[in-house]
């Protein structure tokens, strides 16, 4: 039981860091540009598909990821320049409608380019095995890679935002746009850059998960809602909130799915537990969201008022 | 002297260490315009939010017609005859002028969980709204959209919305804010006609308007009332001149 718990805990952590990669971009773009991007999940999907093609082309997953990152950045950059930028002045309703249109377009373009089937990404041998993390506890190497690269990226983001000039501009931009303009910074390039950064983070999440789940059309459409739950719980616009909420939601969701049924069996007969378990665990994170909202409508770590 | 409608006694409010309202006592009588003036940061806004129950005082009482209303719920104030206009113009831009006032009328006629009968066919709703508009001289613009009004007209509309419930006590929070000389003059004329059968508390920066309109003036400095009297008394009060008018 405790072995299984540890393994599921790590699985939850893995989901958590993926959610963070998605939520970070969402919260960054919202915090700075006040823009709601439903199509963020499409960047996650596109990252996975481009990485798949490049992995086959170069014969190496690592090269696939490294080459796919700049491509996704460029896509994000032009996505902002061509479409998103014309929507900053509109209201949130227009944002969600237009980015909903982008999802339709992205899904179809991916289908046109890669066909309707999912694509599995092969891992090199040194990543596809398992390691013994504690005596008698083995865990897939690649999942550990996901966790550690996710945490590394989170640390990198923290450094970027706290210590660099770009980070300073991002923090200033979130609280005061005119001030950033007054500093003589080209705000439109800053916005496009931030958007591209968000796209890369989402793309990396897609690339990391694809070897486990395959790259599939519409793969971003489900997880994006979970990422929304993360930023709602964490407080929209807050990077710290996104990180803590992502890890929390990832672990709670995973543990709920594995153990809720067993826990319920303690209280009720197993037939009802077998029905109630999956039903309740699938709703768990939304119930948590509802509770957080009921207590703190602005989320756990609301950013400072702009 | 006519009947005292609103009476304030020993009102106190502080935020942290800052005393915003310091033992304020004042009264507003029927058929008069009582103006409150004071330099920026004197605590005028804090004072009137306490009069209207938007903030609760730390100590002291507000009486209306002899009843203690210090802690009376916001939405109950309208039904006993209190109304206010706001410092910042805030009307329903995509509603017609008449509809703006109708919403105000409707707000004070109990709940609006009435789903079936068309509001357009309610004769009294329309009549009461038109009456309020006529009082501020906007009846000719009733069918226009609020977005089509000039700034001055929107301020008039604000006052019509406050008048919509036919209040006995009216608080006007800087009605001349942002107005040109011509518009201000019109507003002064309008306000003069409103004081009959009611009490008006006026908070205003435009000194010309205040001294022309007010029957009595109270001067608020750093949360304290330093003087109350007729315009002439205030004009000649040395303490006021020093604390306030001297600055200008």
């Amino acid at each position, binding site marked *: 039981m405790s072995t299984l718990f540890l393994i599921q805990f790590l699985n939850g952590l893995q989901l958590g860091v993926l959610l963070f990669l998605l939520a970070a971009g969402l919260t960054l773009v*919202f915090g700075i540009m006040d823009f709601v991007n439903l199509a963020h999940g499409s960047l996650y999907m596109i990252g996975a598909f481009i990485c798949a093609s490049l992995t086959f082309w170069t014969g190496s997953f690592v090269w696939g990821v490294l080459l796919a990152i700049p491509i996704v950045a460029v896509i994000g950059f032009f996505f902002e320049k061509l*479409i998103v930028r*014309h*929507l900053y002045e*509109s209201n*949130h309703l227009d944002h*969600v*409608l*237009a980015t*909903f*249109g*982008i*999802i*339709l377009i992205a899904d*179809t*373009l991916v*289908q046109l380019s890669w066909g309707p089937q999912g694509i599995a990404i092969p891992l090199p041998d040194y990543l596809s095995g398992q390691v013994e993390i504690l005596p008698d506890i083995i865990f897939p190497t690649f999942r550990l890679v996901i966790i550690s690269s996710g945490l590394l990226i989170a640390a990198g983001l923290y450094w970027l935002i706290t210590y660099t000039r770009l980070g300073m501009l991002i923090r200033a931009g979130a609280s005061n746009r005119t001030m950033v303009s007054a500093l003589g910074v080209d705000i439109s390039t800053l916005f496009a850059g931030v958007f591209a950064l968000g796209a890369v983070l989402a793309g990396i999440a897609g690339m990391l998960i694809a070897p486990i789940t395959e790259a599939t059309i519409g793969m971003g*459409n489900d997880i994006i*809602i979970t990422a*929304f*739950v993360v930023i*709602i719980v964490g407080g*929209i616009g807050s990077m710290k909130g996104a990180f803590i909420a992502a890890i929390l939601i990832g672990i709670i969701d995973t543990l709920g799915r594995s153990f809720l049924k067993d826990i319920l069996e303690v209280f009720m007969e197993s037939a009802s537990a077998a*029905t109630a378990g*999956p039903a309740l665990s*699938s*709703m768990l994170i*939304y*119930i948590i*969201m*509802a509770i957080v909202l*009921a207590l703190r*409508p602005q989320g756990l770590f609301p950013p400072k008022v702009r | 002297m006519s009947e005292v409608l609103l009476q304030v006694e020993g009102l106190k409010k502080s935020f942290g260490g800052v005393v915003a309202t310091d033992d304020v006592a004042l009264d507003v009588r029927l058929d008069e315009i009582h103006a409150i003036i004071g330099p920026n940061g004197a605590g005028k806004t804090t004072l009137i939010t306490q009069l209207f129950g938007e903030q609760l005082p730390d100590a002291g009482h507000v009486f209306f017609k002899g009843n203690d209303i210090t802690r009376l719920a916001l*939405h109950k104030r309208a039904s006993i005859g209190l109304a206010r206009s706001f410092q910042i113009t*805030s*009307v*329903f*831009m*995509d*509603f*017609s002028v*008449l*509809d703006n006032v*109708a*919403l*105000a009328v*409707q*707000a*004070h006629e109990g709940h*609006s969980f*009435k*789903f*079936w*009968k068309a509001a*357009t066919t*309610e004769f009294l709703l*329309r009549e009461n*709204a*038109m009456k309020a508009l006529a009082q501020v001289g906007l009846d000719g613009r009733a*069918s226009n959209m609020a977005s089509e009004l000039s700034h001055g007209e929107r301020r008039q509309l604000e006052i019509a919305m406050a008048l919509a419930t036919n209040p006995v006590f009216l608080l006007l929070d800087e009605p001349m804010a942002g107005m040109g000389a011509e518009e201000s003059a019109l507003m002064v004329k309008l306000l003069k006609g409103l004081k009959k059968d009611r009490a008006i508390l006026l908070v205003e920066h435009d000194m010309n308007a205040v001294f022309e309109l007010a029957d009595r003036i109270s001067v608020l400095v750093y949360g304290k009332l330093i003087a109350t009297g007729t315009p002439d008394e205030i004009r000649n009060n040395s303490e006021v001149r020093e604390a306030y008018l001297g600055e200008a």
Partner: protein
Amino acid sequence: MSVQEVPKNLKPHLQAPSLFGFGQGKLVTILIMALLFMLPMIAWWMGNKFYLDFSVRIICLAIAAVSLNLILGFGGLVSFGHAAFIGIGAYAVGIPAYHGYESAWLHFPLAVGLAGLFALVTGAISLRTKGVYFIMITMAFAQMAYYFFLSLEEYGGDDGMTLWSRSDFGLINISDGLTFFLLCYSVLAICIYLTFRIVNSRFGMVLRGCNSNEPRMKALGYNTYLYRLTAYVISGAMCGLAGALIANLQDFITADTMTWTRSGELMFMVILGGAGSIFGPVFGAVAFLLIEEVLSAFTIYWALPFGILLILSVLFIKGGVNGLILRGWKS
């Protein structure tokens, strides 16, 4: 814009959304509603089940769009989870039927009641928030409902469940295509008229006032939260009714009808048709499903031009198809 321009009369009157629109717009409205009535009749007369079902599908989704328009168009609440109410309405037919209870007098009240209850609970939480929060939270709650029904293995899980016979009304038999069409058309007409009455009532004035300037409504003494919640519940319940009809139309119920992309499509219909006009959502539903049908006949990649259309309509069209028609006539 929630209030259409009214021809100025000599005597000022309260302005309100009109039922059919004004001038030429009125003609178009009546024409489209007549076509929506005539074409299915012709299809039925010619024995063309496909076009009859297609028309009924338009009508059912139009009911859902009309319900969404009440809060989105008139109330200004961007609810991105309306498909959940369709799903709840559908399962309120499917699950009792699975257990052998086939009476429509159970199914339809249950659909309306449960959808209304779900709206009450989720609305009570989501309406405490504003703007983007509200959009995302309605989305998340809809996704919660989706996963809930997906997890019910007993009722088909992700395979969906078949409805072996349509709801039993006793007096009338809706297994017959024409009768079912007439039922749906009447429900649509009733829902439109209901919306019309509501937005013109005192309640509707308040709802539109909250859309226009919520802080001012609060200052006037309105409890805006309660009014909005009430509208949200009415809207959800009405949409649940659409769900019950859709279940009967498809004879098949799946959680896929409540994914958030479905909610997006509903919103698109409302915007396409012109949010805040009484008949707008009906035009939107007709236009949306027609375009989808035509495009998908040409290409399996129909979503591509559709997405482009959506972006273009956001960037360039204000007031939806309805507004476009009206402006076309005016110019």
